[in-house]
């Protein structure tokens, strides 16, 4: 029981971490709250479903097609709709929400509002500490670890990563230092979409694939990102595992927990914010303080 709990908490926290890091990255760089973020997860999951079950392709081609298609959709929608109104915070939120609705409705029109499933990437299970652990769970944890490590290396060791962090700190100064800010924004958007679609590809077999599947993770990652401090990648990473742990613990150990899981996770967020209004690792500028 306890081992299963640990595995489940790691998987949930890891998937939330993938989503939250992307969300946090795009907020930090472009100062936009992208409510369509988790709909990339939904699109990638549908991509897996369509390419394997409908087209009959093998898993690796399917992964490649889903990933590339989702990134392209993300970049195109950013370029067409979001780029020109980036300064208006509320408008960006509404447009990304409308985009998410459009993605959801297109999936309903294309595949119907039925529950679908996607293929497991590695079938079967192993026995670890006398519990059955599906390979898919282990794979998810491994993918999360590798991708997050890759993100960390990208952001700290490469020129591109330094440019991204410079833009996040101060876009104007970064522009003066010769960084092409609008290209950096596009790259950040691409990375965020890629992280979301990787999350979608690994969790598609574990969750149910249906057009409304973007809603509940969206609420959870917003709680995570706020908890960690908006724009702070380290903060959202830690907060993802806190919220994932709370959620799984509620489901495992409370009666009626499946109804209360998001409620209690959100309650934890509200309480932490009341104690620390800027989140765990958020930055507060002196002139912004009340």
């Amino acid at each position, binding site marked *: 029981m306890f081992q299963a709990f640990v595995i489940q908490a790691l998987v949930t926290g890891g998937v939330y971490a993938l989503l939250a890091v992307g969300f946090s990255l795009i*907020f930090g760089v472009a100062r936009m*709250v992208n409510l369509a973020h988790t709909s990339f997860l939904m699109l990638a999951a549908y991509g897996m479903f369509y390419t394997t079950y409908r087209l009959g392709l093998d898993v690796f081609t399917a992964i490649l097609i889903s990933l590339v298609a989702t990134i392209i959709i993300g970049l195109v929608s950013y370029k067409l*709709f979001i780029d*020109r*109104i980036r300064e*208006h*915070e*509320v*408008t960006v*939120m*509404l*447009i990304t*929400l*409308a*985009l998410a*609705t*459009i993605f*959801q*409705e*297109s999936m*309903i*029109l294309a595949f119907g509002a039925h529950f679908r499933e996607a293929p497991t990437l590695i079938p079967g299970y192993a026995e670890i500490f006398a519990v059955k652990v599906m390979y898919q769970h282990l794979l998810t944890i491994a993918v999360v670890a590798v991708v997050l490590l890759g993100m960390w290396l990208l952001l700290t060791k490469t020129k591109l990563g330094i440019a991204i962090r410079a833009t996040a700190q101060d876009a104007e100064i970064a522009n003066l230092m010769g960084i092409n800010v609008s290209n950096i924004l596009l790259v950040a958007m691409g990375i965020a979409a890629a992280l979301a679609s990787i999350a979608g590809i690994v969790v598609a077999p574990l969750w149910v694939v249906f057009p409304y599947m973007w*809603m509940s993770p969206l*609420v959870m990652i*917003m*709680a995570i*990102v*706020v908890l960690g401090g*908006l724009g702070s990648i380290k903060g959202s990473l830690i907060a993802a595992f806190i919220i994932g742990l709370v959620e799984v613990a509620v489901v495992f150990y409370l009666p*009626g927990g499946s*109804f*209360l*899981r*998001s*409620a*209690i996770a*959100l*309650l934890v*967020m*509200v309480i932490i*914010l*009341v104690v620390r*209004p*800027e*989140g765990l690792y958020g930055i507060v500028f002196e*002139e*912004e303080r*009340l």
Partner: protein
Amino acid sequence: MLRRLFKDIQGEILAIPGRLIALIFFILLFFIPLITQEYYILFVLILVNIFVIFAVSWDFVSGYTGQVSFGHAFFFGVAAYTAALLNKYLGLQPWATIPLGAIAATLAGMVMCLPALRLRGPYLSLVTLAMPLILLGIIKAFPDVTGGEHGISGLPALSGSRMSDYYITLIVMLASVFIMWKLTDSRSGMVRTGIILHAIREDEIAARATGINTIRYKLFAFIVGGFFAGLAGGLYAHFLKIAGPATLDMTLSFQVIIWTVFGGIVSIYGAVVGVYVLYPLMELLRQFNVPVWPGSEIMFSDMRFLIFSAMVIAILLFMPEGVAVWIRDKMERQCPRCKLSNASWRRTCRACGASLY
């Protein structure tokens, strides 16, 4: 007295095309049941009236203080459930449950303020988003008391007939909109809240520096907005005779933002226009069972959310200030000297004679 009223009407309403249109529109609303009494049309219009109260109260809380609330359905749902529970366990009738529900929503507004007043910007939006979802989880966890997924049904109707329902909601709507419009009128000589709320939105630190207790006014905005949203929630529950989880849903919170921003944020009448245009339009699309192209299985009515979202995107990209505000700016021009609104076809200001060009 009468002469003064007449003069006010001539000066303040007839001279400004936007207000003239609003007046004619509201008078027309009173005559709709004389033209048609069809059940379905009145049903849609009653819901429109209820949602107008709701949308205007969102504009009051979020538009005027600049604190974008993503969880306005919290007030709506609290009031709907309070009304339903009071009726189910104490047997109270609508005339008592609706005001009590609104008071419960006011208290909910105070509770929401505890975290909300410490936070700002996106943090505030996300905490307000969390509130209705937390309540929803609690409601679903205790299905014996709250009815769980199915909600509480079998409430008494608002009144006996559809027509009296229509007039009740219409009058409540007009009164609420008028009160909130007056409270936010920045040029009013009687109430100062309008100009103070504007000041808080533009620059909170400057407002504090001039000695305004901004916390008190934000609290005030949450309480008033909560009260009117609660009024809408109570009316909704008694009109549909059910209070269910849909009243707390995230979609409802976002819907109200879309209506308001579509019409024009920070302008009360924008929210009214938004609901009166978008809600009937959605209902119309629902009825529109025509294939997209001949022989296709997909109907226009299946695509209504798609069309709706595409329209919202187009409006936001090309008229970011909202449809109603965009039209008003085409019809009216402000006098550069005395700041009075004038019809845009006038060459000189109607009060001070300054050239408008």
